[in-house]
């Protein structure tokens, strides 16, 4: 092979693209015409509520489901018709799907042996793989003799030793406890960045998505609701759905008075602010997404820049206090990091907005 196409190919190695992919199960259309691009070497999360089509998308990428229409490319090559075992991807299953009759070493070596690698080399690489996930020396154990976290790492090692162009992870942390989840997700991210492969990660947990992703694709009913970096999605949600899904948000109606120079003047109750104007915003009725920590509550009487409210409930959570506040704009959920003198339920308060954590949503 001459050098030029090789280079060209390496350019695309690890990239993923869906072109107008449709997937129907009988009369039900799970994915109606999905198009997306994933850049090589990035970790992309497919995020969404259950039934949004994220797992179906991942399974189509793995070759476990085949699209009804459209094309899928991996590394620039059309793989639409290829079966799972002929694709250069590997997958970590939600249930881990470790073969219960094989030791962890045999599990990890399985894919290598299937690829036609000699037993000795497969064994060595499998041992390396286990070391990579911190399970060196555990190779002789059966899955039933490992803890949940260890089983999960074996599953990751099993997928990684194949050095796939794209690693697929289907809710890999959902069977772990919270503390372990944080550690393992950091480890997965760390390995991904060290080895530089592309990873597609399915989850319904937005914290997980925010923590590990280069890009997040939020899906809803088989369509992309919004795609962007964690910061973009969190700070400028394109819809009330995204705002609420990406971390909690109070979505309240507001009025846009005028738009100029990329900013818009909006009014909510008596409060007027200039905020960045998202594309598609028009003067008139709009919505405002307010993060709980963007609400400033003060016990004094309402000033001109705030509107009145009343504390409905308060919960002390160690490093912060959570409030439910009834206002004329609706019920608001607020978080205050000031815990020394918490407000009491029933107390009248002035509600003000901090400059950060507030975003306008068109429509």
């Amino acid at each position, binding site marked *: 092979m001459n050098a030029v196409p090789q280079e060209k190919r390496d350019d695309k190695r690890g990239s993923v693209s869906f072109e107008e992919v449709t997937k129907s199960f009988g009369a039900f259309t799970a994915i109606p015409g999905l198009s997306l691009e994933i850049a090589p070497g990035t970790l992309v999360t497919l995020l969404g509520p259950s039934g949004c089509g994220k797992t179906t998308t991942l399974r189509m990428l793995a070759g476990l489901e085949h699209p009804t229409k459209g094309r899928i490319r991996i590394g620039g090559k059309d793989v639409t*018709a290829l*079966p799972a*075992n002929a694709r250069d991807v590997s997958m970590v299953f939600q249930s881990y799907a470790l*073969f219960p009759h094989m030791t962890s070493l045999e599990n990890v070596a399985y894919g290598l042996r299937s690829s036609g690698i000699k037993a000795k080399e497969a064994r060595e690489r499998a041992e390396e793989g286990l070391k990579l996930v911190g399970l060196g020396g555990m190779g002789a154990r059966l899955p*039933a003799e490992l803890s949940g976290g260890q089983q999960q790492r074996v599953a990751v090692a099993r997928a990684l030793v194949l050095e796939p162009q794209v690693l697929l992870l289907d809710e890999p942390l959902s069977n772990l406890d919270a503390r372990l989840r944080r550690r393992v997700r950091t480890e997965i991210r760390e390995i991904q960045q060290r080895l530089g*492969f592309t990873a597609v990660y399915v989850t319904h947990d937005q914290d997980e998505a925010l923590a590990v992703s280069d890009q997040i694709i939020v899906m809803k009913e088989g369509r992309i609701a919004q795609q962007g970096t964690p910061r973009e999605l969190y700070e400028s949600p394109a819809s009330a759905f995204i705002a609420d899904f990406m971390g909690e948000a109070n979505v309240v109606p507001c009025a846009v008075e005028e738009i100029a120079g990329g900013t818009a003047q909006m009014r909510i109750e008596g409060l007027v602010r200039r905020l960045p104007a998202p594309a598609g915003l028009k003067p008139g009725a709009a919505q405002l997404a307010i993060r709980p920590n963007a609400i400033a509550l003060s016990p004094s009487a309402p000033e001109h820049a705030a509107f009145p409210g009343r504390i409905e409930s308060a919960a002390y959570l160690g490093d912060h206090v959570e409030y439910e506040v009834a206002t004329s704009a609706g019920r608001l959920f607020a978080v205050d990091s000031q815990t020394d003198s918490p407000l009491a339920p029933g107390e009248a308060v002035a509600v003000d907005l901090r400059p950060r954590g507030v975003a306008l949503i068109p429509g």
Partner: protein
Amino acid sequence: MTLAPASGFAASANPPPPRRLDAALLLGLLAFLILPWHRIEGGFFGFRWLAGFPSDPDTAPGLLQILLHGRIWLLAPLLALAAAAWARFALKDPDARGRAWVRLGALGLALLTIQGFLIGFMGWSWLWLDGLFGELSQGQPAMGAGAVTAGAAFLLIFSFGLADRGVLRGDAFVISSIAFLAALVAIFVFYPVTRMLVGAFQDFDGSFTTAGFTRNMASSSIWSLGCVIGETRCGVAWRTLWLALMTATGATTLGLCFALLATRTRFPFKKGLRLLTILPIITPPFVVGLALVLLFGRSGVITQGLSSLFGVEPGRWLYGLTGVWIAQVLSFTPVAFLILIGVVEGVSPSMEEASQTLRADRWRTFAQVSLPLMKPGLANAFLISFIESMADFGNPLVLGGSHGVLSTEIFFAVVGASTDPSRAAVLAIILLGFTLTAFMAQRLWLGKKNFATVSGKGDPGQHAALPEGVRRLVYAVTIPWLLFTVTVYAMIFAGGFVKTWGLDHSLTFGHYLRAFGVSWGDQGILWTGVAWNSFWTTMKIALIAAPLTAAVGMLTAWLIVRQNFVGRGLFEFALMMSFAIPGTVIGVSYVMAFNMPPLEMTGSALILVMCFVFRNMPVGVRGGVAAMSQIDKSLDEASLTLRADSARTLRRVALPLLRPAITAALVYAFVRAITSISAVIFLVSAQYNMATAYIVGLVENGEYGVAIAYSSALIVVMAAIISGFQLLVGERRLRRENRVAATSADGKGAAA
């Protein structure tokens, strides 16, 4: 990062044709150029045909048959093969090539079949063809190695064509497996049965008539409800149905009790239990019947004892449905046990532990969690015992007396004093109706419930102990039944050492010496016993049939559960049908179908092997399906994403997890091949005589002593070989705690 070695593909629009295409073409060449086309008189594997090969008209391969011996009709399938070879090299687009191969493969198969049916020994098979095409100067013998290989090559061409077109994700292994299984089922199930059913509408001279059919279908001897409304007997259909329901209920209940006893109690003799419950299946059915006669017949030990002690009048109660029922429950409980033990073990302990932590006591855990999880197994056990009872031939023959059931009535309609093939066919249709209804009922009852209990996660924990009441019930049911079984077997083994039952009770080794005598002559050991010939034949055929049966059965189960192909339901149905047809019908239909070209197998060992494979495979399939639906599908998917193709997935993931089901299938296939009598009795020949047929011959000659001595020797040999199988296949390796939570004497749980 480097590219994983196995993942390189050609990215061009038209990848080179896969190598499997060349393999299929080579197989076709082998069929037409090298292998003798027609059946070799005296057997292919005798290799005596090599003497006249390849020019002799009896042994010539297909191409020479066309060129030298004027059998020009073979040119048609050869041209189909040639066209496929042309398409392989000329058509670059996989889709176009695939389409051509699908058509050519189907065409080749069709041509091969048509020429086989149209041209028999003497030329055209039907006279009107003479008028149409003129008389043929010569005919042809039945198909042989070459023709069969050609058929296989056309099947591969057809399957690879479908794979090229992307059917079933282009998985050539799965498609060819389905194609081959479908072809085998068509040849060994549908074809003979169709031949048999055509018999329902044929007169003795072969002409078409409906008279026999309508007369028999409306017969009151079949459908009478006389026993409900009056004093007369019920029709044979109702009697058989009632018997089968009772047997299935009895066998399933007992099987479940034994399975619970073996896995959920601290019963001290579990190992012995397994052996003891296996005993009845390794026993030719009529032997259980004979033993019951020795116990409860008019001159039986117990009958005579009761008579002399309490003056109870010796009765004939044993000869009838009651006796058959007892013998059948004795015979089929172990089958149910074998199915249920895998299911009971497969119930995830964490489900039971979860239930216990949910404030459920042991009774509630058992009734609401363990038992419902066993439902597919229970349904399978019930279905199989039901059909077994319907198809059973040995016990009704010995114990049925004048109360015949459908299977014996069919037998007598074929070989009895008044032969009536039409009546036999009608009875067979009725029997099939019952068994298919049972099959449907089972499918509807189980529905689409998901019973996956072996998941991809490791699954530690221990099984819950049985509730006290259930435990007592299990003991109360199983222990008397065990004692009864022991007594029956004691009778069988004692029988061989007694001179003449009822007349002379002195002990003797004479029967064993006559059956299994050996002496030393000039040539070494001389097998002088009368049993040796049939004994070695039986062992040979059973050892060939058992692994074949298990392999075909597991492959089928895997295809049915894991692959989604068109006609899967039909496929499963067809398999069950082969099991639902009683042996008597299979025997007769095989004789009718395979006695003349195009397929001639009667008198060979092959027909016995194929008969066993297709009679016994469905049990393996059911067991495999039940076990497979307990294994999480994500394990298969994980294997696929780890670069394994479907063949490797089957071999490395599915089969190891199916070991208990495989053992069951092997054991079942082996013992059935040795113990079955109903189909075998039609298919044995002087050269290939089977033990059971020989024993029945002994019984007919009144040599009860030798017969029962031979039977008990068979039982011992089978027990030994089964233990070997068990060791060979081994236990499923999941390292799940195989303990039962200990219970203290007062029934409260305590830590083990």
